């Protein structure tokens, strides 16, 4: 197994405020996207290739600039003005910006940067400009790391730009653990894969000798819970991502365990355990292995997910006769049903912001990914297809990734993402099929 995490030291230094290249009044108000306002028209921006400040750093400078542009454009909130349209070029990071040249091509935001390489050491600095205000947005930043982590550095720059313009946290410097799928439906090979959020740097954590299902990141992103059939029976395992060492979490003979998820403090795991055909929720203390039963009844209780403050758990149950969503205290006890629309609801996941619950809905032969408030109100369906399921939240709670499977004997699974307003639906760029994504926290 190769090293999974790029091992580099990342420094972050605030650059002094730049002197504005000219004095101009803000014409369109401050440079800002309010995500909640339902942005239809993406904000035009320009990322001229970052200035290569050392010999031999030309290619990496271009590559970094491209990843930044792809991150921002990929949100659907920004639109890149391509280099062919640029009037100015940036040849010196310290030189004053010619705002008129960027205004002329309607670039509202301009990102300039410089890259230097010394041995395997990489330094990236950048500034964000509000072109129409003729001033810098925030302060310049400088990141230091190693060359093999260049994509992460680019993601960090893009996160900072996104954050300054939207006022929200970013999500580009994050990873996704998922189930990689190959082969036909009746002989599908499944193995755990991990990759950057944009599909780059894919690596495998298991081979395909046993079925694996539904990996879930720990709050630090360093460990993964998942279900494996390696003993012939589905059981929950905990894997350290860096070393790929794993241990079984629940190995009681005659029971199945699945659908695990960490508590926000990482100290306990909630999961489903099936005994005698009946599936209930249990909470397990990670350190001691001690197990507490949270539900007790003949219904199916599964797919639990903690609220970000750790006090509550949302889960699905068919106690009413069909799959519906319920919320209970993290210690168990009385549960309140929150889903009330037509159809069946499953796989609820609490947003990291705490405001919404994402879910899978099955209605009239179609599957949907949707969101609702935590009391079940304001249900909104974001997608519709033959089979959509298993949402996971981006670290900033603004984007959802999920599994979409196509119909028929040749049906395949792939990962898709959509933003919480239902826009910007797209397939995650990656080789081969995939399912059951889990999005890491920001790194």
């Amino acid at each position, binding site marked *: 197994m190769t090293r999974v995490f790029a091992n580099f030291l990342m420094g972050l230094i605030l650059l002094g405020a730049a002197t504005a290249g000219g004095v101009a009044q803000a014409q369109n108000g401050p440079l800002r996207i309010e995500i909640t306002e339902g942005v239809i028209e993406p904000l035009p921006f320009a990322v001229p290739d970052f200035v290569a400040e050392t010999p031999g750093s030309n290619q990496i400078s271009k590559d970094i600039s491209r990843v930044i542009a792809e991150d921002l454009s990929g949100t659907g909130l920004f639109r890149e003005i391509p280099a062919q349209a640029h009037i100015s070029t940036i040849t010196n990071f310290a030189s004053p910006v010619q705002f008129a040249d960027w205004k002329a091509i309607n670039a509202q935001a301009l990102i300039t940067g410089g890259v230097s390489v010394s041995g395997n050491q990489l330094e990236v600095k950048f500034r964000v400009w509000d072109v129409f205000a003729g001033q810098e947005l925030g302060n310049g930043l400088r990141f230091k790391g190693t060359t093999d982590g260049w994509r992460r550095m680019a993601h960090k720059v893009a996160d900072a730009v996104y954050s300054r313009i939207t006022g929200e946290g970013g999500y580009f410097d994050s990873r996704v653990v998922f189930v990689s799928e190959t082969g036909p439906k009746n002989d599908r090979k499944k193995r755990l894969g991990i990759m950057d959020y944009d599909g780059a740097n894919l690596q495998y954590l298991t081979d395909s000798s*046993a079925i694996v299902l539904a990996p879930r990141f720990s709050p630090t992103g360093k460990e993964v819970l998942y279900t494996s059939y390696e003993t012939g029976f589905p059981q929950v395992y905990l894997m350290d991502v860096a070393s790929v060492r794993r241990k079984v979490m629940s190995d009681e003979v005659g029971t199945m365990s699945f659908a695990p998820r960490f508590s926000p403090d990482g100290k306990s795991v909630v999961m489903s355990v099936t005994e005698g055909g009946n599936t209930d929720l249990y909470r397990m203390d990670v350190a001691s292995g001690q197990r507490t039963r949270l539900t007790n009844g003949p219904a199916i209780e599964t797919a639990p997910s903690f609220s970000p403050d750790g006090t509550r758990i949302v889960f699905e149950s068919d106690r009413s006769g069909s799959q519906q969503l319920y919320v209970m205290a993290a210690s168990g006890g009385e549960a309140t049903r929150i889903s009330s629309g037509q159809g069946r609801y499953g796989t609820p996941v609490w947003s990291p912001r705490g405001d919404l619950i994402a879910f899978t809905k099955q209605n009239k032969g179609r599957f949907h990914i949707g969101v609702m408030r935590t009391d079940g109100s304001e249900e909104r369906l974001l997608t519709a297809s033959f089979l959509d399921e298993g949402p996971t939240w981006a670290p900033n709670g603004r984007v959802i990734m999920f599994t979409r499977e196509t119909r028929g004997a040749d049906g395949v699974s792939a990962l898709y993402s959509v933003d919480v307003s239902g826009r910007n639906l797209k397939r995650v760029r990656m080789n081969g099929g995939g399912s059951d994504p889990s999005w890491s926290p920001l790194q």
Partner: protein
Amino acid sequence: MRHVTKAALLVAGLTLAACANSDLYSGTDGPGSQSGATAGSVDDPTSIAHFQQVVGDRVLFAVDQSTLSDEGRLTVLAQANWLLDNPEYTAVVEGHADEQGTREYNLALGARRASAVRQLLVAQGVSANRIRTVSYGKERPIELCSAESCYAQNRRAVTVLAAGATG
């Protein structure tokens, strides 16, 4: 008309089940691999092949249900008799679901189906420690189309034999 349709489906079901038997031996993982057990001849009433094809190794379920149908119940009763006559075998009952459902729910549903078969086997006198259950949810379909004709075959519980000492 209804009877005709049902009969046609039954025949189709048997044919498909027979064709699908090979999948029980091809797996490299899970209890379905049955290392050391050979199917033998259908004509030998103590053979696995006889159990699969004459007694019937699987029962089918209605959408979202885990209650045995009358027909399924008869199959399980025959399985119980066979197991009582052939005490050298243990069995794993594998529960499955069709693809119309979320992964976790289907795992739990498959467990219910496997358990329904196990409970009846045990009620008929088969020793409880000879029968284990496992659910594959929607992970192991045998029929691939996205239509009820395939889903009906995939909503199943299969009693998979293993030769050897009691587990």
